[in-house]
């Protein structure tokens, strides 16, 4: 029998990890000379007690859901995709090309087209390292991280030499046509008569696509024969081979799904928020996805919760930087602590808990 009930493993362990990270962060804030209680208050107020705060938080969350899901799918095949940044950048290029060069009559069609464009571009970008891994054995961690730099170069080239409007000094594409504009949460709230809600916040309908993606990944991993094969290969290569699962095929498919999900992040940032393709729009979300997947234990529901937490930390961090002496970088430190405790050090939390549950069982027996 498993030592701990499942809910402890999925909810209590990450919760305690976050708590430890929070306590350490509090000590850091005290060291800077600010009050951690005030800082927490500010983060909560600025994020959760204002609709615009929600609007920002959900915008970040959308990114993290996509990249977190992407890393999770690869994890299930025992592949460590740290190329989310690059795949998202190239996905952005796909979004831009689709939005700029196809005359869309309405955003509902444009978002479908842009999603396909983003997914296909991300897929191809992840497919190259996947092929090298599957056929040549080049380690996916090395290749995907190098592909991040190549992607940055490619994006740079396209923005400076191809997509930049004539006469512009800004390395960015032209604005997308207004028919591709995605309704923001503010637009949606206005329909119901709340014109002031979510004012100027970037969260938009792609949040719902992210939620759909969670459901789709859940079905893929736990209900489909393909997901079964992905998990089988991830757990045991020899067993998968025995069962007639083709490793090359599964590695390719898992990585391409992962790349597609990363790419789709760009419908939120590029079509939804900036409405043009700009440099550095990914803002590290590809890497945050690793933390989100670790904390969410590669389960779509866990990824959703972890993405909400990181969305909160991102938005709360911006608030801190705005109103206190606490630098924005501290948020990066807090995130790093969360990653450290939920990922690398989760055993530190789990082992004492296991002992606790073991003694409970003993007492019962």
């Amino acid at each position, binding site marked *: 029998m498993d030592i701990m009930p499942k809910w402890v493993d999925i909810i209590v362990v990450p919760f305690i990890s976050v708590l430890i990270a929070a306590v350490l962060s509090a000590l850091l804030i005290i060291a800077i000379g600010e009050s951690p209680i005030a800082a927490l208050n500010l983060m909560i107020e600025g994020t959760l007690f204002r609709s615009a705060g929600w609007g920002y938080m959900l915008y970040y969350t959308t990114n993290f859901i996509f990249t977190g899901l992407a890393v999770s799918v690869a994890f299930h095949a025992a592949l460590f995709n740290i190329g989310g940044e690059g795949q998202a950048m190239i996905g952005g290029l796909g979004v831009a090309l689709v939005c700029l060069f196809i005359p869309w009559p309405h955003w509902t069609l444009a978002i479908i087209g842009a999603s396909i464009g983003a997914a296909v571009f991300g897929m191809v970008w992840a497919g190259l390292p996947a092929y090298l891994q599957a056929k040549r054995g080049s380690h996916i961690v090395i290749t995907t991280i190098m592909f991040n730099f190549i992607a940055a170069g490619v994006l740079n080239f396209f923005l400076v030499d191809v997509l930049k409007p004539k006469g512009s000094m800004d390395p960015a594409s032209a604005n997308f046509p207004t028919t591709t504009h995605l309704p923001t949460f503010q637009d949606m709230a206005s329909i119901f008569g709340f014109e002031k809600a979510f004012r100027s916040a970037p969260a938009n309908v792609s949040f719902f696509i992210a939620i759909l993606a969670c459901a789709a990944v859940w*079905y893929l991993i736990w209900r489909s024969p393909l997901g079964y094969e992905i998990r*089988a290969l991830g757990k045991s290569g020899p*067993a998968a*081979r025995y*069962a*007639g699962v083709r490793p090359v*095929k599964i590695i390719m498919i898992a990585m391409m799904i992962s790349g597609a999900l990363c790419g789709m992040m760009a419908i939120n940032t590029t079509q939804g928020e900036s409405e043009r393709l700009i440099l550095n729009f990914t803002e590290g979300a590809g890497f945050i996805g690793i933390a989100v997947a670790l904390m969410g234990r590669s389960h779509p529901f866990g990824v959703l919760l972890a993405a909400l937490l990181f969305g909160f930390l991102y938005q709360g961090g911006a608030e801190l930087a705005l109103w206190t002496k606490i630098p924005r970088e501290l948020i990066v430190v807090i995130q790093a602590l969360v990653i450290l405790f939920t990922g690398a050090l989760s055993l530190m939390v789990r082992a004492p808990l296991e002992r606790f549950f073991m003694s409970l069982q*003993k007492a019962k027996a």
Partner: protein
Amino acid sequence: MEPAIELKKISKSFGPVQANKDINISVMPGTIHGIIGENGAGKSTLMSILYGFYKADAGEIFVDGKKISIPDSQAAIAVGIGMVFQHFKLVENFSVLENIVLGAESGALLSPSLSKARTELAELASEYELNVDPDAIIEDIGVGMQQRVEILKALYRKANILILDEPTGVLTPAEADQLFRILKRLREEGKTIILITHKLREIMDITDTVSVMRQGEMTATLKTDDTSPEDLAELMVGRKVLLRVDKTPAKPTDPVLEIQNLSMVDDFGVKRLKNINLTVKAGEILGIAGVAGNGQSELLQVLGGYSAATGVIKLNGSEIDLSTSVSGDGQARRAMGMAHVPEDRQREGLIMDFMAWENAVFGYHREKSNQANRFFMDNNAIRKETEEKMKRFDVRPPNPKLTAKNFSGGNQQKIVLAREIERNPDLLLVGQPTRGVDIGAIEFIHQQIVALRDQGKAILLISVELDEILSLSDRVLVMFDGEIMGERQPENTNEKELGLLMAGVSEEFAQ
């Protein structure tokens, strides 16, 4: 005389599991004492307590009449206890000498330790007839030799009590005989030996006294001369056990599997299979005997569809395309009526982190009967069916939601067997069906295989256990170095003849 080692009321539990309960043993010096029991009976836990890996919850240990405590393996070595593990603890790319000295160096500089060890090793070798080349590299010498190094390691550390855990698992019959000669020699020199095994024959052959363990308790301690294999088996399992397989003569009919000129070269360019020709007919069990590593595994891999090969394989008369079968052809072959119980259930046959129901469709997960619709698997139906299968095959506990790694070896094997046999295949490939499986389950597994044969199915059995080959097979082939050395009828041959063929002695000579 004081017992060399005496345990009094040793108990140890892991969480709710009581691994050892009030164990009492006393072993006189200069004797060989066997400890026999099924997997999970608590033998290894007990020995780990003796060697300081675990701390007993209660009980006392006496060595030469003195009460001692063994907090770690250093303490065990200090009182003269040496252990030879089932899986050798040797550094593969070190020499024999370096391995023996490792952890027992006499100072900061290595060369004095080594030269001291070299002279002592020569003395030990002459005293116990344990000859090994001290400068040979471990990975270059055979398993039998490696085991000798383990024994020498213990003797170098002045062990008077030697514990051997399943020592013959990896040896050929000849190597096992050699080991037993060494053990008898050690006994003559006054050493005390504790032999842990699940093989009844070894207990009968070599031990003076034997203890039987069942479910953490010591059920009996007997003089070996006063007991019989049947009695021991009954004490181990707790009920009467059939040691010989009960079967009627085979009625072979049409060929199901035909192999012609099958050859295979591995990734390193080594020829693993050399022109194999064989036929398995419906209604018979063809056994392939051989020492592990002589091409049997490769033959199963090629047949199972995950290694490329040259030659012809026909299943039910239709030829299998070997050129495309580099990997991933397993599902197509299953559809043709082939089932496969792989040699290593933990590495290949099961995914240890998957639940029983997920494992129960492994390899058949894309079949229509397991699909709810075009896109999704019918998990509820699979769970329900698995629970029924587990009950039919007496898997304990019959809980389809339990993870594979939480079942005992025998029950894991039953899950694999249930999956493969319940598909009603025309051909069943079975590799090492009872490796690491307890006696009670062995009986059941053998019955299932014979029952499948009696339904008119073809069975190819590969096993390194000669007993198993001889009692199950209707015909026996012997493999050596990728070649078939010869064919025998189990009723007209014996272990000695097969042992010679397994060692590569050619057909004419063996007769």
